[in-house]
């Protein structure tokens, strides 16, 4: 019945109001400029200061409304609530809440996402090898969810259906507990079925385990440089870059690709780096639907540590790395002696690059202004 109503409504009101427009545009260019009301297209010009050659989205994403800023996400390591257990082990506690939330993934495009803590990617868990980790997981979403960590743990803590607690229903909760092993650059994600939907809706995040230097004789220096908060680590400019995509029309193909969720975030506002300090990128691929994603760095080369589980590079002096879904690794490079300027990096699937996964480092000499 409601359909009938709307159809008739269209015929009556629509044809009348449409008739005027149609008459005006009959066989003409129809270039009449009306003074339209606009509440979202006001600032529709791309940032003219930044390079894009016409290939860009129009307007700005409202990071405040999203509740997270891709630039802050680069470095907002979450070390949890820290305490020491009777046996001397460090305990890190986290609270992660699954919730439904609409996220603006490109200017004006809103995606009905499922999130951990209202953000995509979820909180970047950063801990040290051997720490005890407790994740208090609360599902306040509309579907059953889990958290599956890529790490070493018992079957009951694996966060998959029908094992241990299985899928955690809406309004239910569970505490995942395990030792942070092995060190490296890892990830976590929801493993509820249907898996594909639960991942591409946004339920994933980074799980970074810094090596314990005392356990790696011979590589102590390299290990210490990775441990957040040490003097050796202070020198490094560390960034989390998580490659993801969004299927906005649910046809099992991504309309938007991004580094850290928002299309062209680091093209429209490049990431500033000081050329005098080395750069370390924790790179994770969670892109759904496509077999691989990649990162290509312009005008420079990097050392790569696959999964971050080694202290010597698994590939030296490369400028492109490709990853399947859930593959990740650590990139180390330096712009020392480079001319200051904008250095591009992006997926070297040109398609992904032009659909949002396009970025720049703004290399400066000296302190960066955030």
């Amino acid at each position: 019945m409601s359909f009938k109503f709307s159809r008739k409504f269209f015929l009556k009101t629509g044809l009348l109001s449409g008739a005027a427009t149609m008459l005006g545009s009959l066989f003409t260019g129809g270039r009449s400029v009306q003074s339209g009301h606009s509440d979202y297209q006001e600032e529709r010009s791309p940032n003219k200061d930044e390079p894009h050659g016409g290939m860009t989205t129009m307007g700005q994403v409202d990071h405040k409304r999203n509740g997270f800023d891709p630039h802050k996400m680069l470095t907002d390591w979450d070390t949890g609530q820290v305490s020491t257990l009777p046996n001397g082990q460090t305990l890190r506690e986290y609270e992660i809440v699954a919730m439904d939330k609409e996220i603006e993934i490109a200017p004006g495009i809103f995606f009905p996402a499922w999130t951990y803590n209202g953000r995509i990617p979820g909180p970047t868990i950063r801990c040290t090898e051997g720490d005890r980790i407790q994740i208090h997981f609360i599902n306040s979403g509309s579907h059953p969810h889990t958290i599956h960590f890529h790490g070493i743990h018992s079957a009951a803590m694996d966060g998959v259906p029908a094992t241990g607690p299985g899928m955690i229903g809406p309004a239910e909760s569970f505490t995942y507990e395990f030792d942070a092993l092995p060190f490296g650059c890892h990830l976590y994600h929801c493993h509820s079925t249907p898996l594909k939907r639960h991942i591409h809706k946004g339920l994933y995040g980074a799980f970074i385990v810094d090596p314990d230097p005392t356990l790696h004789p011979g590589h102590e220096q390299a290990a210490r440089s990775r441990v957040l908060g040490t003097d050796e680590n202070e020198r490094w400019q560390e960034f989390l870059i998580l490659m993801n995509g969004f299927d906005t029309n649910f046809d099992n193909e991504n309309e938007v690709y991004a580094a850290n969720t928002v299309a062209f975030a680091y093209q429209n506002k490049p990431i500033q780096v000081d050329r005098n300090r080395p750069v370390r990128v924790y790179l994770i691929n969670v892109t759904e639907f496509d077999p691989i994603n990649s990162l290509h760095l312009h005008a420079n080369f990097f050392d790569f540590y696959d999964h971050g589980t080694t202290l010597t590079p698994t590939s030296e002096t490369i400028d492109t790395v490709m990853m399947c879904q859930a593959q990740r690794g650590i990139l180390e490079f330096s712009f020392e002696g480079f001319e200051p300027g904008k250095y591009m990096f992006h997926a070297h699937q040109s398609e992904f690059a032009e659909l949002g996964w396009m970025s720049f480092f703004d290399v400066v000499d000296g302190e960066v202004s955030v």
Partner: protein
Amino acid sequence: MNEKITERFPKWLWIVIPVALLLGSIAIFFATNPLEPLGVQAPPVEEVTVERTILDEDGIHLTVRVNGSEPVKIAQVLVDDAYWEFTQTPKGPLSRLSSANIDIPYPWVQHELHEIKLITSTGATFAHTIEVAEPTPVWSMQRVWAYILLGIYIGVIPVGLGLLFYPYLKTLGSKGLNFLLTLTIGLLGYLLIDTLQEGLEISQRAAGVFNGTLMVWLTTGIAFLIIFAVGRRGGQAPEGLSLSTYLAFGIGLHNLGEGLAVGAAMASGEAALGSFLVVGFTLHNLTEGIGIAVPLLDRKTGFGTFVNLTLLAGLPAAAGTLIGAFSYAPHWGAILFAIGAGAILQVMVEVGFFLNKNTRTGTWFTVPNLAGFVLGIAIMYGTALLVNV
């Protein structure tokens, strides 16, 4: 009782009361939202149709029409799977049935295909394919003249040549006349189906809200009735010159549509219109000239009349090529085709009446008549093979 009440009040009240009740019930509907218990909370239904595409040095220019349960916000534009800058005029959300221009400064590649995707705020995507990118013609005297010439080649010349058969047709006598009349009906039958088909096809490209298919059928029917009524306004069926004029008018509208298709195909680069195709149209439309001549066979006709009939039937093709080349909204194209179909139906009916009147044997359904009818269709179909690319 009822009559007394109705008589007691002024007549206009019986318009005011139902209208007031209608407005009242609509107001109540919107105020109370009675559909709420049904839990209708679906995302808005959206539709974006690209009605016109213009390619020039500045890039790609689209005219889009939107429809939706809520105003549609076009958030981003993709060309060949790449986000591209664009300007929308007018800016802002687009209310249902309104249209806007989207200008995309994209370096398109001549002769190649481009795929455009419009993404709305809900993430829905609407695709539009430019099959072969060619610069949209701009108005210049030279170009306008070229398109007019093209129209003359596919419209005026063949009809004129067909009419030149007149002296020969005159020698065929009464039996021959009936044969030619049925041939004409066959020809018209072909044109009717062809025109309707074109109209229905083009209506598919129009915004869904227009109900393209329904619009074509209704327009055809109404056009038929109006032209039929005009033709019969004197109380009797048109004959002779009058019938020939209606024939020329109907065929002229068909040629307008034909010109439209040819002009559009040429401008958009979809048809490499070689001289072969023009020759094909000349042969195809020659039969139309013969049809127009038939009602004049039993009377004297001056040369000037033939010239006028030729122009009436042929010249619209030139108008068609022009309109088609310089881009038009599909719903108007569909309406043009539908009017053409209605006009052709009218002459089919009138030629049928004329045939019936001209038949003394009591039955018009004879082998020669059927042969003429089939031959008319066969000639048109056969020569159409030359122009289908």
